[in-house]
């Protein structure tokens, strides 16, 4: 008998539509849709995709409980042997949705879940300990590489075969430690590593240290009425015409714009962000960067001053390395300008 796979995709891969459909409530189709079709073929008759759940990325993230209730009911009804979600590549909202489904399915139904994501997708951290997350490229161009790896792992999991190490199988390490037999004892392996290091040779640690890079909360503002507050956004709000040509995805730079003479952004600003429906932000960009309200607070004396410039970039698909660089550069300017506090909005 063929094993049963239930597939989860977003509105885009579910072939419903782009950002304009990101608010769609989940739907179930009793067929393989989008990547589920290719995936089905890769199961080579051993298993079968019995249906596809399609949900808008915004809907899932904004109405998680409602979305999950629908999705979990379908899964309970269809009783698949395994659930496959994505791959989400570097799409953050899609990754968080796949992670949300994965966590609920594993925790509540004890059904295994396979997904696929780019390493920097926030969904990875959110579910890698529960689901098997295949390491993918950062865009859908990596679909053809991702699906066979996901299909292979799916088959192994359903058959109860033991998965190999993450780098052998192509998934992101789950942070689990397993007992394995080594040919050489620990002291010898350690000395060999040390010698390799001293000789400038290559060596591989057996216990990578987790990175805990936390920044302690900065002290609070003592007196708001004397404070200068700056606005920063990853929502891609720029002056009409995008004079600095900030990218609409995978940003390579940020911009700063003088708002000292303005009461609101509305009128001369719009969004170039490629990761959300721009209709609402284009109509009233203050819906993303609340300059209008902050200026009123300045007039009323609630705050001392709105900093003359606001800073902006696009958050979608932007690498952690670039985001770190932008933050360091923007922070330096704000520090030198004597800014007392920052409001950063994200879409």
């Amino acid at each position: 008998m063929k094993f049963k796979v239930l597939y989860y995709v977003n509105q885009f891969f579910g072939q419903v539509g782009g950002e304009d459909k990101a608010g769609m409530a989940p739907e179930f189709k009793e067929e393989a849709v989008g990547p589920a079709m290719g995936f089905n073929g890769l199961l080579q008759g051993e298993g079968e995709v019995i249906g596809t759940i399609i949900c808008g990325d915004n809907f899932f993230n904004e109405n998680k409980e409602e979305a999950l209730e629908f999705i979990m009911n379908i899964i309970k009804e269809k009783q698949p042997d395994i659930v496959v979600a994505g791959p989400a590549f570097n799409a953050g909202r899609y990754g968080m949705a796949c992670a949300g489904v994965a966590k609920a399915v594993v925790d509540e139904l004890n059904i295994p879940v396979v997904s696929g994501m780019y390493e920097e997708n926030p969904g990875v951290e959110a579910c890698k300990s529960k689901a098997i997350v295949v390491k993918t490229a950062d865009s859908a161009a990596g679909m053809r590489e991702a699906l066979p790896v996901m299909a292979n792992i799916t088959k192994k999991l359903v058959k109860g075969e033991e998965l190999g190490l993450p780098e052998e199988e192509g998934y992101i390490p789950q942070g689990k430690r397993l007992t394995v037999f080594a040919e050489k004892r620990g002291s010898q392996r350690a000395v060999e590593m040390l010698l390799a290091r001293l000789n400038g040779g290559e060596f591989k640690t057996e216990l990578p240290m987790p990175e805990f890079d936390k920044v302690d909360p900065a002290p609070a503002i003592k007196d708001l009425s004397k404070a200068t507050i700056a606005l920063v956004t990853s929502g891609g709000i720029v002056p009409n015409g995008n004079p600095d040509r900030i990218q609409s995805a995978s940003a390579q730079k940020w911009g700063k714009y003088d708002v000292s003479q303005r009461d609101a952004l509305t009128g001369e600003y719009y969004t170039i962000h490629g990761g959300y429906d721009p209709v609402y932000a284009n109509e009233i960009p203050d819906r993303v960067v609340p300059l209008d309200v902050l200026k009123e607070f300045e007039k009323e004396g609630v705050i001392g001053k709105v900093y003359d410039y606001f800073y902006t970039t696009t958050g979608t698909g932007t690498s952690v390395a670039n985001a770190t660089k932008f933050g360091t550069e923007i922070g330096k300017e704000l520090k030198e300008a004597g800014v007392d506090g920052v409001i950063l909005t994200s879409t």
Partner: protein
Amino acid sequence: MVKEIERYGIPIVHMATITTISESVGANRIVPTIAIPHPVGNPDLSKEEEYTLRKKLTERALKALSTEIEEATHF
């Protein structure tokens, strides 16, 4: 970006809808917002109501900036 700006010792508040991402990127002061395409707005409301909503959210952000915290906190 939030973390790197805070590294300079400037308090920063993250206003975002997917607050699980705020937490995972290391934001300490977090204000949950309305929706992804309009975090501090709601096109379903009248202009006045929407402005009041934005005012409330921004007030919350200012409160976050002026509140001492020890760990990641939602406002």
